């Protein structure tokens, strides 16, 4: 799924009826632990679903999960690639033992904003002289199934960030809601090999239908809307050539996604200092309480800290989420803190996402417009408004 050329070759479509989702999920759970959006009573979040337990209680996964709804989970799928606390290694008997026990998950139902966020994470963690081995291992082990959004939810601003709410190719398999069925697209060799035999088999005990049973016109109407957004306005079936054309266009633009215009982009050519005092940060963050929720639920926030835990005779080192919103993030041992005030920390969060990461990683913006930070902020600090202010000031 990283190699674009490969994408083009493997791209083709199947479909799956919504009635057959139960069996489909059961199939997914045979090799890996299945992760689905689940309603925990107050929020929807991605959790590991224990199929065996459900079978025992004769429950339905569809009842237990919220996969068929059009929603945005309150947390992203980030934690299955970059867990909140992850054991890196153990100091044991005067030696170290690397933690290679990385579980593989089949993650079902990630939204395009989350998938694009994973692209950002990959840019940060897997480029440069060293790759983050833990992210990389999970990336290899996981099987990722994306699902397009039908509607924009309140506070979503993916379109402003150049993310297509219905589609992202940064996954193994992409599903698109098409009434009583989903259109299935393979976007990686892994996606094809895991599902191909399964989906093609018309006589499969669980009755999955193959693509041939669905007239191409269905797919055609489905994709025409999206096809108009790309440079070559070719309605009709998005076939391999069309896909190649999309890729070429993306490459010409130099961006990685590059399909929609990113209206919230800051000018990468400008010096960092030009944005530094562009707005009155203290004023716009006057109400910020300094909790870290915006960073923790953000699908692209990737900062981490190491934490040591000593146990009898051994010690373990963990890689843990950290948040630039906490004063301790930059506190020196001497007591000096380069970002002592809340507004300085908030400025770091905004500029890091929209200016510094694009500077360092070929224009990839570390925000996909999922709107979670706006939705979850207890005091209504709105990054959209702040960005608008910056861009307005910049245009003046």
């Amino acid at each position, binding site marked *: 799924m990283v190699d674009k050329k490969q994408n083009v070759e493997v791209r083709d479509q199947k479909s799956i009826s919504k009635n057959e989702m139960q069996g489909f999920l059961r199939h997914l759970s045979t090799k890996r632990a299945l992760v689905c959006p689940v309603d925990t009573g107050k929020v929807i979040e991605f959790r590991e679903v224990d199929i065996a337990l459900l079978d025992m209680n004769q429950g339905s996964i569809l009842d237990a999960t919220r996969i068929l709804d059009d929603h945005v989970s309150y947390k992203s799928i980030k934690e299955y690639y970059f867990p909140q606390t992850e054991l*890196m290694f153990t100091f044991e008997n*005067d030696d*170290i033992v690397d933690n290679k026990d990385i579980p593989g998950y089949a993650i079902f139902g990630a939204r395009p904003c989350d998938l694009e966020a994973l692209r950002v994470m990959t840019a940060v*963690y897997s480029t440069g002289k060293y790759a983050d081995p833990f992210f990389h291992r999970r990336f290899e082990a996981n099987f990722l199934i994306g699902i397009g959004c039908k509607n924009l939810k309140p506070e979503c601003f993916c379109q402003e960030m150049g993310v297509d709410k219905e589609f992202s190719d940064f996954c193994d398999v992409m599903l698109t809601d098409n009434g009583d069925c989903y259109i299935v697209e393979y976007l990686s060799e892994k996606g094809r090999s895991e599902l191909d035999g399964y989906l093609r088999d018309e006589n499969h005990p669980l009755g999955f239908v193959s693509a041939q049973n669905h007239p191409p016109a269905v797919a055609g109407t489905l994709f025409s809307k999206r096809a108009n957004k790309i440079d070559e306005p070719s309605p009709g079936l998005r076939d391999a050539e069309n896909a190649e054309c999309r890729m070429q266009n993306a490459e010409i633009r130099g961006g990685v996604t590059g399909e929609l215009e990113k209206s919230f982009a800051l000018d990468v050519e400008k010096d*960092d200092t030009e944005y530094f005092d562009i707005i009155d940060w203290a004023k716009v963050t006057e109400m910020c309480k300094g909790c870290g929720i915006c960073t923790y639920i953000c699908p692209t926030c990737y*900062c*981490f800290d190491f934490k040591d835990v000593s146990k009898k005779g051994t010690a373990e*080192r963990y890689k843990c989420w950290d948040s630039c919103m906490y004063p301790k993030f930059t506190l020196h041992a001497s007591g000096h803190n380069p970002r002592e005030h809340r507004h300085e920390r908030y400025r770091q969060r905004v500029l890091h996402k929209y200016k510094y990461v694009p500077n360092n990683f070929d224009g990839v913006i570390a925000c996909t417009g999922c709107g979670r930070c706006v939705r979850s902020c207890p005091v209504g600090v709105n990054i959209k408004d702040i960005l608008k202010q910056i861009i307005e000031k910049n245009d003046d």
Partner: protein
Amino acid sequence: MYHDNNPYLPMKAKIERIIQETSSPDLDVKTFKMKLLGDESLSFLPGQFIEFSIPGFGECPFGFASMLQDDGCFDITIKRTGKVTNRIHALDEGANVWIRGPFGNTFPLEKMEGSDLFYVAGGIGLAPLRPFIQYVLSPENRKKYGKVNMLLAARSSTDHCFTYDYDTWRTIGDTTIQQTIDRDEPDWTGLVGFPHNLIKDMAIDLSNCYAVLCGPPIMIKAVQETLTDMGMPLDRLYTTLEMRMTCGVGKCAKCNIGHQYICVDGPVFSMAELSAMPNEY
């Protein structure tokens, strides 16, 4: 050099010797002479740093305080300030520790060739400059550089570090060392006062000179202002920054200032580079 290309896994090193640097009452600066265990040896240049681990307590970045010595040892000089450094100071000679590195960029050694050098260090700020001084003063490199001047400041006479080196350094041609303390003490023969007040009287030729500053932020700022007043361009002034760092390889984004990472793009910056960065250090 890393196990399975995992940059977060440290390597085992042994503390060969511990030198008590300062003799002020809290004895808070020690130099640890250490060596990697096993066949591997480190290869690094002045300005780079390592991450030093104490299992169960944590990891901290420290600059190299010496070049690699003939016996494969290198020095790390540490001031006792927090949880990890307290623990490090409690270590004995012969103890095994864990290190990762080297990380970061180096002083622009080639660019400075043919020029005079002026080192201004405050207290333990001499530690990251020491490998640079050793490099320049080594027999094979000495002739590549011009005059070497040093102004070494400390709070009191007991807070000067690496005093055992000064005599050796002085014997190498065209090298002057001036020591200063904040307030006069009996039997003190060096200068008295803050470095920025003393530079003007030192009669150093700054026309073809690079200045390298390291010390408390307030000292760096004051010295930089004085040198700029004396006509020194910003791109000839160098310093080395410190930030809280976790990974050392540009992933954790803790040492992020503007779009630069101190652990990868730094820690050595010229004042010209710093002036283009947001003032967050």
